[in-house]
């Protein structure tokens, strides 16, 4: 029996067949004869199957598994634990089945005595307790509707592994939408990044809550204004922390009734450790896109361990210090938002206003202030904020120290023949010799199909190929030289810009990044809660509830892409007229039951 079973297994997994063949079960493994005469197994004194009639037990269990699969229309099943006889009775299952058995010894004992040749023609077996190896299997990444089932005995043997796998298995497949709350900063450069992320996540079909924190910005400014004297620095810091606390409490309150799966915070988002801890307590996955230079901005150290995943833009240098601070890092390059930045044919008026040979858009960081005056004679125009007042810069700034909107920035990009991009540095006078990350501008300029002359960066070639899709400089001389050359060679300039544009569209939109991010969250060390991962939309429900016209009539009052949650149910009922119908009451009852469960969860009781 063993050899025949191993032959069948060898056809799908020769390594495992070899491992089982070489395995000798230890003394804790006992093969016993049940009352019915069939095989049952005892491991370390505990039975794996019935001592009376294990075959009948397996048949009932398999029927139950199949019933559950049929009820939800599952096309893939991951079964934790092989049981003793169960697989024989699962052959009727027409979908994909992956059996995960942590014990090779048990496999050996079963294969010695139970005919599984047909089963191995239909199903896959993994015999290991290596979590990473199991999670690497495509069934954990599948996009089809699936079920994670388990034998209670195997769960008892390996509870942690079981729970890990169960949590990481997404019933709706990897295509199932997440509910994501994108947390922007109050103000500043990362705000459009947050907007781009939110838009991209929506495009990917996720349910996105874009939180607008701009109402808190005046309070922040008021604090800054009231405590601008350096002697009040301590007070200023305390007040800002209090404001961040308040924002945190506001966010937590807004998540009480409808918590998202993921909180996706973008650099400078006002979330403190207290808020992050409590989000964790609510079972919400916390992700942070720290798209700043970790050497310049140090606040990440305090927050690192409070996020489940920190996306960052410095893959080589940042990973180690992040790990040391207790954070789990995933590199994620910056990107652009095609809805905002794209090639544009400027009107005559716009061309008069923004048309120029060379331009630079950005804030007046130290190295830029040192570097750029050497280009004034080449007709450089500068846009942006924080440039020295009462200086020569004012002569080359058409709109001195005015923050440009994303839309205007796009006009500026499209109006220039050569767009300079010099990454900021607070300590270098010119090009940072160890510059690694790429700023958003790198991708935006490519997206606008503008010829970009950028300072040399360590990671640039991974994103845009120098000389083909972008051009680079490493000092003032090479910069001047290339400006002059490309102003004279319009065709080459246009070709590089077009190449950069193609590459950017193909690889560097926020949509690409959000795909990577969601994928990383789903396969990262902290599992996403599957509970909220497949929030149904009105449209989907209406499709699946065609035989429920009364229910459809109530829900049909809502927009098709609205996710059905407590708030949506209330809205649907409120939109009705006259006395409540039975369906409306039933929906309200569902809402109340759900709210009650959430309430009891919060106070640590069962409903």
């Amino acid at each position, binding site marked *: 029996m063993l050899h025949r079973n191993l032959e069948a297994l060898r056809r799908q997994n020769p390594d495992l067949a070899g491992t089982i063949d070489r395995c000798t079960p230890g003394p804790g493994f006992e093969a016993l004869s049940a009352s019915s005469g069939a095989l049952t197994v005892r491991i370390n004194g505990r039975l794996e199957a019935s001592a009376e009639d294990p075959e009948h037990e397996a048949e009932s269990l398999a029927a139950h598994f199949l019933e559950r699969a049929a*009820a*939800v229309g*599952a096309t893939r099943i991951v079964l934790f634990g092989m049981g003793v006889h169960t697989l024989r009775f699962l052959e009727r299952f027409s979908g994909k089945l992956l059996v995960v058995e942590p014990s090779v010894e048990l496999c050996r004992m079963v294969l010695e005595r139970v005919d599984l040749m047909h089963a191995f023609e239909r199903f896959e077996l993994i015999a290991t307790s290596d979590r990473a190896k199991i999670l690497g299997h495509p069934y954990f990444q599948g996009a089809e*509707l699936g*079920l994670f089932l388990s034998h209670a005995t195997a769960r008892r043997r390996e509870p942690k592994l079981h729970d890990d796998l169960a949590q990481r298995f997404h*019933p*709706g497949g990897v295509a199932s939408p997440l509910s994501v709350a994108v947390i922007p900063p109050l103000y500043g450069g990362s705000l459009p990044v947050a907007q781009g992320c939110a838009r991209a996540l929506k495009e990917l079909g996720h349910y996105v809550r874009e939180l607008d924190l701009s109402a808190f910005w005046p309070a922040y400014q008021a604090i800054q204004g009231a405590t601008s004297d350096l002697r009040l620095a301590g007070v200023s810091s305390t007040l800002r922390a209090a404001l961040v606390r308040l924002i945190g409490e506001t966010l937590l309150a807004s998540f009480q009734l409808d918590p998202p799966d993921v909180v996706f915070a973008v650099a400078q988002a006002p979330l403190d450790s207290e808020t992050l801890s409590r989000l964790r307590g609510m079972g919400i996955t916390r992700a942070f896109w720290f798209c700043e230079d970790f050497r310049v901005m140090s606040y990440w150290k305090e927050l690192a361990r409070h996020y489940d995943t920190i996306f960052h833009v410095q893959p080589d240098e940042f990973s180690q210090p992040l790990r040391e601070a207790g954070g789990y890092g995933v590199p994620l390059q910056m990107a652009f938002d095609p809805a905002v930045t794209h090639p544009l044919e400027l009107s005559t008026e716009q061309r008069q206003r923004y048309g120029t040979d060379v331009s630079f858009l950005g804030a007046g960081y130290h190295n830029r202030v040192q570097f750029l005056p050497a280009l004034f004679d080449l007709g450089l125009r500068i846009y942006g904020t924080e440039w020295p007042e009462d200086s020569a810069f004012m002569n080359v700034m058409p709109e001195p120290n005015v923050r440009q909107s994303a839309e205007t920035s796009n006009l500026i990009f499209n109006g220039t023949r050569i767009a300079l991009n010099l990454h900021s540095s607070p300590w270098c006078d010119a090009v940072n010799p160890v510059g690694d990350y790429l700023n958003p501008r790198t991708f935006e300029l490519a997206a606008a199909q503008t010829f970009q002359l950028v300072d040399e960066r360590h990671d640039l070639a991974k994103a845009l190929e120098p000389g083909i899709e972008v051009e680079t400089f490493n000092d003032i001389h090479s910069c001047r030289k290339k400006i002059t050359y490309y102003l004279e060679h319009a065709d080459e300039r246009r070709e590089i810009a077009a190449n950069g544009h193609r590459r950017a569209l193909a690889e560097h939109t926020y949509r690409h990044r959000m795909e990577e991010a969601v994928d990383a969250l789903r396969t990262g060390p902290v599992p996403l809660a*599957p*509970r*909220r*991962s*497949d929030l*149904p939309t009105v449209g*989907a*429900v209406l499709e*699946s*509830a065609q035989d*429920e016209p009364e*229910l459809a009539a109530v829900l049909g009052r809502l927009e098709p892409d609205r996710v*059905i949650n407590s708030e949506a149910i209330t809205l649907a*009922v409120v939109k009705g007229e006259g*006395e*409540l119908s*039975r369906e*409306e*009451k*039933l*929906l*309200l*009852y*569902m809402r*109340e*039951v*759900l*709210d*009650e*469960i959430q309430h009891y969860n919060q*106070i*640590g*009781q069962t*409903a």
Partner: protein
Amino acid sequence: MKDIAILNLTRFGDLVQTSPVVVSLRKRHPAAKIHLIVKSRFRSIAEMLPAVDAIHEVDGDALAEAVTRPDLAFADRFRRVRDIVDRLAEIHFDLIFNFTHSRASAVLLSLLNAERSTGFTLDRNGQRRVDNKWLGYMATLVRARRLSRFNLVDIYLGAAGLSGSRASLCVNIPEPARTFAAERLPGPGPRVAVQLGASTDTKTWSVDRFAETLKDLTRRIPSVRTVLVGVAAEESQGRKLKASCPGVWFEDLVGKTTIDELAAVLERTNLLLTGDTGTMHLAGAVGTTTCSVFVGLGTPYETAVYAEGHWALMSRISCAPCGYSVKCGHTVCHSDIPSGWLADFLQRILEQKPVEDLPALPRADVLRTRFDENGLLELVPLHPREPEPQDLLALAYRAAFLESLEGIPARPEQVWQRAMERFGIQPEKWRHALPESMLGQLERLDEIARHAEDLISGLEKLGQQPAELREGSKSLKETDQAIYAIARSEPLLAPLGLAHETAMEDLPDVDLPTLAWMSARVYGSLRRRVAVLREVIAADGSLAFTAQGETA
């Protein structure tokens, strides 16, 4: 009335507290079939209640699964919930009392098949409303708990029109359970049952304090037997207690009894030491004396054992009891019950000796249960002490609300007498024991309510003139805001504002003349409560006691 149902989707203790209602309903309606609708998890306790003819279950676990299971399509969730509800809706009831203080239960009630229902219900717009005076009081005074003096069972009884029936808690114990208890607890006592856990952490007295008390008690009575009871989740607390109490004789039954076996075990003990728990009510139902330490969220004024001769201890710290939204991080109320004193107290109860000569606790009240002259439970302090303002006003509120809820005339002399017994305060001293501004505020409330009555009277005369009606309605709203402003500014007057607000919100959607008439009654009730308070406070005769007003 053939089929009467009680919808009680609460917990173990609340179900035991339903027993006096069930028994009293049986007496009132001997031919009726009495149904109990409970969560499946608590069916076993429902089965122990006498006089129940049928039990119907709401499967909370199935409901939870239906609304939360991620792999279930929304339409399927809907169908599952509908199936659960439909099974209940197949049964016809003549009357359902909903004692469950939750929005979910109000919605469920609206889906059931009942000729009539009362309690927490849903109006036709889907808003929860309370159409029962007693349950309205319960829903309201939850926000002014320190001034409320009605036991939950009295509220249930009142809600069912059975106030003052004096029916105590009761359960049936099956013989096999008694056999189990006799086998586990053979021989003589004295036995003290101990329940360590409670439904929430904030209601749980610490294991260390239980341990100190039991060690001291064993030193005083070496023959005492400690019977640990509770659910399996409390096993670790039990282990910790036993490890802290070398020399104490334990019979550990934590997680080892069914609910009826627990009742039988409690029946074989002389005393139960517990927090505010379901086990406490069960002990009361089987006639075992209880001594309950109320900490955190719990207050004996709401949930003391509904029978005479039980004991409750409670800190007098100003924050006790905790508000429902509070998560206390500094439970100082726990230390206000000294374990040495408690051991002495328990010894005397076990030995049936007087306890009156024990020293008064400096920061806690020791309260004994008894029925008052109206058959309602009240708590009497073991030792008289100086009154706090809320102690006095709570007595006055009890009288005032009892009048509006049951029509029992408020008698100031009875209020004063209780205050004399408990706090040694003469009637003429009341005014000085309360905030100076209180009488003025009460007078202002009366003026405002009278003005509202005048407005309504004017509206009634106007008939159906839309513009004037709108204007009148606006004036009434402003009047209410003025009432709420006074009640908010003085926490001791909060019950007046809260009760008025609830009554106004719960006015039914009816024709204007009826609504005007009902509104006038609400203002009349407020005026009457104000009058009672003013009369009780101004015992020096400076105010003439108004004739008994109409009751809402």
